[in-house]
């Protein structure tokens, strides 16, 4: 007889099915066998392991659609295994990885390598993106069809923008044969070249070259024209400016099927986090002004921004303890994705269900992933969340190999108490 586990006394939140109710869930053979408000109302039959959720939230495991795991190449910063440990500590059971590794994931064998590496962890589902251009050099298209067959979820040059409009136009047109999604890093590269932080008073005071916010909207608007002429699927990653979000809002209103995401950095922080040349706060795109931050919050509230992704980007001290202009951009985020997203709920921007949807059902639906739902028959990737629990993020308590978090010492509310992968508990908070 197969192992069965009952999660009782839970507040079930399943945005994919519009469910937010008290109830229970039964796991059998790695899958959700039953779920509902009436389930186990009269007690759990003997022979079933029972986990009492004590009225806390039981939701699908988080789906992070944008994580940089620098394996192969820079495993001293993070390996797939260490990223998986960080993910489950943060309630994330599915990650989609960027191709900006060394070598770049632009080949069928490398896509298969990443999938296999993810499977070996036994902790998370790993789906790789493949590069859109060979070596992310922006010159030659990768084998979109073959890579798609090998399991590449979508195509992107990751941290680099696809600058050449001719190339992007062809890529968009070609991708329609496979219904492949193309993800852009929306930043006009010549405007951003040499830039370190958001253009404005901060950049002027610190004597650092600025990246103007219009670099984002220019790239988005250019791409929208190419998308309109090709009918391709297009997604703008980590949007960070009021202008960029507004362009997407208007395009959606016109009926264009485009999507976008942002990361917790862009609604949880603004450029003042840089303080005195704090290189941990060097990101790409850069942290923006308070007005832009508010626009990101508004974009999440009104649904212009579909998804919240961690934009996890581990960097070691050798890449960060440098003069600002020489330091690498990026911050880790897997373990802080949930609590910072829940700030939107506590600040009354989103309902609890809507906040959880941004990190579960929305990215899963966008990428067509078999994850992010409590539907009967789905894989039992679950997270138990205490949405109100206060705690303080400590960088030394994080599981990631790299420590470049921007949220160290931040008091937050809401914590992942238990992470379940395929019916098996893979993380349990110490005092849960």
């Amino acid at each position, binding site marked *: 007889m197969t192992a069965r586990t009952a999660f009782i006394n839970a507040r079930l939140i399943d945005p994919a099915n519009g469910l937010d109710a008290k109830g229970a869930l039964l796991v059998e053979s790695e899958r959700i066998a039953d779920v509902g408000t009436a389930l186990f109302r009269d007690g759990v039959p003997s022979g079933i392991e029972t986990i009492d959720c004590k009225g806390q939230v039981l939701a699908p495991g988080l789906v992070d659609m944008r994580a940089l795991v620098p394996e192969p190449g820079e495993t001293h910063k993070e390996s797939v295994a260490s990223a998986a440990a960080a993910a489950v500590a943060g309630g994330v059971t599915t990650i989609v990885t960027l191709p900006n590794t060394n070598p770049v994931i632009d080949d069928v064998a490398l896509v298969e390598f990443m999938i296999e590496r993810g499977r070996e962890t036994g902790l998370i589902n790993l789906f790789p993106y493949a590069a859109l251009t060979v070596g992310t050099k922006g010159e030659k298209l990768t084998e979109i069809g073959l890579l798609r067959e090998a399991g590449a979820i979508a195509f992107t040059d990751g941290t680099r923008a696809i600058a050449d409009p001719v190339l992007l136009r062809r890529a968009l047109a070609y991708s329609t044969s496979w219904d492949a999604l193309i993800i852009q890093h929306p930043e006009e590269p010549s405007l951003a070249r040499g830039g370190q932080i958001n253009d404005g008073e901060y950049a002027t*005071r610190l004597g650092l070259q600025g990246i103007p916010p219009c670099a984002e909207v220019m790239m988005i608007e250019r791409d929208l024209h190419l998308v309109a002429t090709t009918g391709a699927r297009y997604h703008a990653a980590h949007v960070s400016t009021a202008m960029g979000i507004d362009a997407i809002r208007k395009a959606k209103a016109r009926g264009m099927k485009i999507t976008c995401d942002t990361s917790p950095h862009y609604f949880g922080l603004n450029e003042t986090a840089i303080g005195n040349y704090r290189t941990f706060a060097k990101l790409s795109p850069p942290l923006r002004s308070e007005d832009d931050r508010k626009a990101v919050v508004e974009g999440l509230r009104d649904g212009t921004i579909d998804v919240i992704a961690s934009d996890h980007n581990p960097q070691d001290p050798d890449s960060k303890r*440098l003069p600002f202009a020489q330091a690498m951009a990026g911050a880790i985020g897997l373990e802080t994705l949930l609590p910072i997203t829940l700030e939107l709920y506590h600040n009354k921007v989103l309902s609890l269900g809507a906040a959880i949807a941004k990190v579960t059902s929305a990215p899963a639906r966008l990428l067509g992933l078999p994850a992010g739902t409590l539907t009967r028959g789905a894989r039992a990737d679950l997270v138990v969340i205490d949405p109100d629990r206060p705690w303080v993020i400590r960088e030394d308590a994080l599981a990631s190999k790299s420590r470049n978090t921007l949220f160290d010492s931040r008091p937050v509310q809401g914590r992942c108490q238990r992470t379940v992968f395929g019916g098996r508990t893979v993380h349990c908070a110490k005092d849960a």
Partner: protein
Amino acid sequence: MLDPATHVIGKCGGPDAVAEMVGIHVSNVHRWTYPRARGGTDGRIPARHHARLIAEAARRGITLVPEDFFHGTEAAAALSSAPRKREPASQMTQPADPTRFRHRHLLGIEGLSSDEIAYLLDRANGFVDMSRSRRKADLLSGLSVMNLFFEDSTRTRTSFELAALRLGADVINMSVATSSIQKGESLIDTALTLNAMHPDVLVVRHPHSGAVELLSQKVTCSVINAGDGSHEHPTQALLDALTIRRRKGRIGGLIVAICGDVAHSRVARSNIHLLTTMGARVRVVGPPTLVPRSMARMGVEIFHDMRQGLKDCDIVMMLRLQLERMHGTYVPSLRENFHFYGLDYDKLANAKPDALIMHPGPINRGVEIDTAVADDVERSVITEQVEMGVAVRMACLEAVTANLPWMDARSRA
């Protein structure tokens, strides 16, 4: 000969007991009895430990008095014969003086108070005559100053070197071209390596904004910023201010126009902070590509028409076009730039008749300033700025080193 340290250690019951009383490692207690050549303190106990030792001794029933710290020296006799004035223990180590400069580093002007700036200018003014008469002082004798320049500079480095020598310090010039920086060593590693050699002051210039601050976080000595990227160049702003104050008798209320490549200029940023803090009205003048609009948030007025910008100015401060920091075109041509933004008598006529002309150097004649204007002995104070530079750097070296933790013991020794 019995030195004060051996005397006190004996009275307190041995080195281990003293280490426990003061809360330091016993090897440091032994060090008090070593000669300075061996890394010791020549038989003296650092003054910062005196109050703690006396208090701890009292708690343990050991009679320890301030004279004990000078046992066997001439100072002890003077102390015992002097009328006894009881001071609270807390004041024994740190005399409080609100106008003193209280920072171990000088990384920028931003954040300094007008009192601190005035203190540095007053001290520097005192050093001008000393410099002129080619006298030397021994205020910093025994200290080592290391010039660490990651960017070529002759005038600033020489100025710091001379300032340190005039105060009796030893100076070492680190040439980056021949050092391991070229071999890929990181800035932090360089800082740690140099720190291990126990310099007292590092004077650092670096092509990247914020690099000097980063380095200062990793060293125990004082750090003076000799220019970091486009961020700050505090000693230049101070020497400009000293030049202005000596000529005009004040800074507050003056109208100062900073003209040219403001965007890339660390001199401009430091000057804006200093002059606005001291109550001057600051204008920045230049083409829109070289004068960022956001600079208005730093409390300056922005002008793109030089004639308007110079109107009724007391000081005209010209800046060099920093071509080495420009990627791509910021001005169409040097000819066009000079025509609209170069300082000549025609444009200068808009300023007050007694307006001074300043330039941080090196000047590019015919690019940002007309030769005749630059050489006008009535108006141009460019060479005087260079002279003030040495005095200002003497004051800065003296001010920051006074706050080194080991200087307290030195001054009492």
